């Protein structure tokens, strides 16, 4: 995508180092930094509900970035990401309550545990790919879900398990406003890490495996190693996201981590753009705000005389689910490269305005 972005006149790159920067231009860098600083002041400005949405975007965004590394960059398909997210949540709660490890250590540890599980279930990726891998990960989704329901020592069974809030040096991040900073820090940290990973040798190896795995193997990229590593990294991200989710809600129950959640993660990265870190975030924001927009849309409709149809008002939950399905289909048919691509096109249009050629 970098070839699409227009650099200012006279800004030529003379070394690989310049070609590999995280931010393509200094404008993008400053805009990003100011956005992050502005987000730090968000709890002072916007109301509590919006903060919960931002927290939701953070933990889902971390997990979705993991899936994008696996699907978008390495070209492996996983239908079990929701289960790994759930595993991270349970693992963190379990480490905290059974082994009494402080919460801020539990979160990365849960990430590593999930990484192990992900590599175990990703092991078939060494042998199979594409469609077969999709079905294998579908099976692991059901097996892990079944494990949650059964392993009472780990997940608390049907009752679920409790998770303490994050605390650091005696200060507990137990309100939405304070947890928001934990979530924001994790999001920024994990996204920087993701960007850097993709600039490294391993990141380029992932892309090579995706684009033409036979050529990659001939060039000396170890296929099995990178396929497995990609599964591991993706599960690590899922685990971190899940752990944040657990300590944010304070309670984890097995019902949430179904195949539907895996599909939502896939929907996020497809809507945002496969193989785009910026797109991941766009997709997550889109998917978090979609139900909210629908809900307020129905809310507005309810006010008017002609819009107060009981079928629509009562069926809101189903309409939300249908919207997810429709959005997936619509994006795949009309904009398969996602929001990131559309954004680049809009930017280019204005750069050249009014001379579009």
């Amino acid at each position, binding site marked *: 995508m970098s070839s699409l972005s227009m650099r200012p006149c006279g800004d030529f790159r003379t070394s690989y180092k310049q070609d590999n920067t995280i931010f393509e231009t200094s404008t993008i860098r400053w805009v990003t930094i100011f956005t992050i600083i502005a987000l730090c002041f968000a709890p002072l400005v916007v109301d509590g509900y919006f903060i919960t949405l931002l927290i939701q975007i953070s933990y889902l965004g971390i997990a979705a970035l993991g899936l994008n590394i696996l699907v978008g960059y390495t070209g492996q398909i996983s239908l079990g990401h929701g289960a790994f997210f759930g595993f991270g949540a349970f693992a963190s709660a379990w480490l905290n309550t059974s082994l009494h490890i402080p919460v801020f250590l539990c979160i990365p540890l849960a990430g590593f545990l999930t990484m192990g599980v992900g590599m175990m279930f990703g092991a*078939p990726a060494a042998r199979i790919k*594409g469609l077969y891998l*999709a079905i294998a990960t579908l099976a692991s989704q059901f097996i892990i879900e079944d494990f949650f329901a059964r392993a009472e020592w780990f997940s608390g069974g049907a009752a679920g398990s409790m998770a303490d809030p994050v605390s650091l040096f005696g200060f507990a991040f137990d309100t939405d406003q304070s947890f928001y900073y934990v979530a924001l820090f994790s999001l920024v940290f994990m996204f920087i890490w993701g960007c850097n990973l993709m600039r490294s040798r391993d990141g380029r190896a992932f892309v090579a495996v995706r684009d033409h795995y036979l050529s990659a193997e001939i060039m000396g990229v170890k296929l099995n190693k990178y396929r497995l590593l990609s599964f591991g990294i993706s599960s690590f991200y899922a685990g971190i996201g899940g752990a944040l989710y657990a300590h944010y809600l304070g309670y984890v129950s097995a019902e949430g981590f179904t*195949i539907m959640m895996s599909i939502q993660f896939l929907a996020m990265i497809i809507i945002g753009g496969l193989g785009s870190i910026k797109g991941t975030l766009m997709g997550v924001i889109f998917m978090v705000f979609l139900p909210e927009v629908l809900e307020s849309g129905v809310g507005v409709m309810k006010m008017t005389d002609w819009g107060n149809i009981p*079928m629509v008002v009562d069926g809101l939950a*189903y309409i939300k689910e*249908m919207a997810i399905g429709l959005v*997936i*289909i619509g994006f795949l048919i009309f904009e398969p490269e996602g929001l990131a691509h559309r954004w680049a096109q809009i930017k280019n249009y204005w750069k050249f305005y009014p001379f579009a050629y």
Partner: protein
Amino acid sequence: MNFELLTQLVVNGLIVGLLYGVIGMCFVLVYKSTQIVNFAQGEFLLIGAWVCWASLIYLELPFFLGFLLSLLFMAAFGVLLQMIVLRPMIGEPIISVIMVTIGLSIFFQSLMKWIFGVSPQSYPQVFDTQSINILGLNVEMAYLMSTVIALIIMVAFYMFFKHSKHGLAMRATAFDQQASQSLGVSVKHVFAMSWGIAATVSATAGIVLGMVNGVSDSLSIMGIKVFPAVILGGLDSIVGAIVGGLIIGVLENVAEFFDSQYLHIGNMYDIAPFYVLLIILWFKPYGLFGTKDIERI
């Protein structure tokens, strides 16, 4: 060891396995001719069963008329679905194709929940007697009908592919798309036809299952349970789908039996096929009858 229960369970497994085989056949048919993995297979069952239910309850048609009506509806539905949603996906990467069918599956599943509600509904009584006794085993009438219908469908598939012009065209397309196109086979029609057939036949299976257990959104789980069957048999083998269906049908019942008698792990009926699925993918990814992909540079 309770042999009577075991035999009963194995017979049940064979009956359900035949239905898995029928659904698996539709899955393989779509995969073979259009290279699309249909994650929305279960929704075909669901929609077919609900349409039939609605035509019996709201239109008050006699059973066989309602049955025919829903089959006609599903044939049109399958063809339209292929034309509107899946035709633009030709040539797209596999992740997009999978996600489109998953999107369809979510959409139709919640649409059905929205229209018909979540509580299971049962069909009006079709047979006078509930169950009959064959060789000392109790067999429910609906199960007997399902077996007969499944066998009829399988024979019909065989005759269609062996002796009809359209069947020949479909086999040719599955074998070599470009060559058959250059010999005058309309690949477009073949694609549409395979989706139409898959939708119709799945709907039949859905109606039969609905008669046994009632119609509810749990029918769509069948679309996922068919994966172990088709992977075991080989993704592109119709015979394999039937064999795989029978094996998985028996296996889940036997697993349930051993679990309830000895192991007491619980939930084996639903989860055992997925363990089998993972094991097959580890050791023999192309299944019993599938053709192995050979890639050349």
